[in-house]
């Protein structure tokens, strides 16, 4: 699975680096690094909902560092991954 966090200007200013760092931390903690590839992206065309994050080339959602944990837990549950 691919997760792309936008590092375009609008998202960067709203803290995409913090979102990415949170992802990096939790992916390690949950041992999901081989299942989820975390990547950056430039503008995903949802600047008002920064920090934009694209999940598996599909929908773009608005993220904050706080939302990372519930998101990963939900994904893990969906895929029946043990975390």
């Amino acid at each position: 699975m691919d997760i792309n966090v936008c590092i375009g200007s609008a998202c960067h200013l709203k803290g995409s680096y913090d979102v990415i760092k949170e992802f990096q931390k939790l992916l390690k903690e949950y041992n999901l690094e081989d299942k989820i590839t975390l990547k950056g992206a430039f503008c995903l065309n949802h600047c008002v909902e920064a920090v934009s994050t694209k999940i598996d080339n599909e929908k773009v959602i608005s993220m904050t560092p706080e939302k990372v944990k519930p998101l990963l837990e939900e994904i893990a549950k969906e895929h029946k991954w043990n975390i």
Partner: protein
Amino acid sequence: MEYKFESNTQELKYKVLKAAAKAGFNKEKRVSKSKLAKEIIPGPKPSFRCCIHKERTIIKERLQIALHEEKDESIIKVIDSACEQCPIQRYTVTDACRGCIARSCENSCPVDAVYMVAGRAYINYEKCIECGKCKETCQFNAISDTLRPCRRSCPVDAIEIDDSKIAKINYEKCISCGQCAYNCPFGAITDISYVKDVAQDLANKVPMYALIAPSIASQFNNTKIGQVTHSLKKIGFKDVIEVALGADIVIKTETEEFIQRMEENNNYMTTSCCPSFVNLIEANAKDQVNHISTTVSPMVALGRLVKDLHKDAVTVFIGPCIAKKHEAKKPEFKDAIDYVITFEELRSLLGAKDIVVCDMPEDPLNNASYQGRMFAVQGGVASSITNYIIDNNLDVDFQPVLSNGAKECLKNINLAKYGKLKGNFIEGMACNGGCISGPGSLTHQKKDANTIKQYALKAKEKTTNDALEVINTLNLKLHKK
């Protein structure tokens, strides 16, 4: 929009490029240059030359280049019909000569080329060696130096004059710095243009990314960078990204390379970000080429990053530099950059879409660090590396020597060659003052350097480390070899 132009030649170029961009946006296959020439030169009175027919002929030649219809892919071209065949004699006696008693001109000439004819000084051009002594000694300032502006501006003596007195570029010597194109008062030298191709791709909804050089900050008068960013997105760019982020990548990579070279007892290394500087070494000091940093330029680094994250991205570098057009065409960098356009071309691209930049809302532009942004100014690369060394507590003896302009670049390379350089690192920028005074810039003012500094201070990330904190460069090829 009423732009302030630096000169009429700049304005003329704007009109021509804008017509080319319009043709691109309209996806026109066959463009009638005669029709466009008539629109640009409506007549009936000529504006600059002898008659409107000559003016239109020249415009058609300009359009040919602006529309990228020329077969020959050289970056800088002379428009033969526009070349005024300026005098080739360097020194001329003017009417101010009073045929005085002192006759310092005659007495100072080392080759007896000056003498009095009909009560006035006369220069025998068969003998004259163009040393300038007569001019220096004349108390009336009656001898003028009429060296052609193209030749005067060329730092490597690459402009030659053919039998019909038309300027010719010696491409063996040319380093693509573009100074002749900027300095010809008749606008007879110009750069190859991709503005039509870019406009056409935008019209075809190709995913285009604008990679914008830090010197953008001093370009548009009374306009905020955010307004330029918004304008670019409005005409169809998917995103606008600072090349200064590429500079941050370069700072890190180049510092690591420098440290390694010093450990291997290399005596010096040069920067590689200025393509004219690289060309200068390649053409004039072949035996020093291995001292050029193998780190790619910020443009290439960013181009590769964008393409790594967006596989279908088409990258357009927008900057003050004409030599970047040469760099981007090198086979080893073709994967990184699809088009290079100058700020002049950017202005016409926006003009073609009737975008009034100063009326636009602002979009943010913030991808890079303070240090990355300072690359645009002379001394910026060296100071960024110094800061990076300090921030990371690196143990290395870094002694930069700055070279301002191509002539100084060459001087420092020669000093290094003979072991006389007072340092171990040469920062080379072929334009005086750095990229901000590039030939494709819209303004060339003293205050520009300060404008860049103010803009650099607004970066969210202060240091290169901060800017690169989450940027994954592992997949990127950051060295030439």
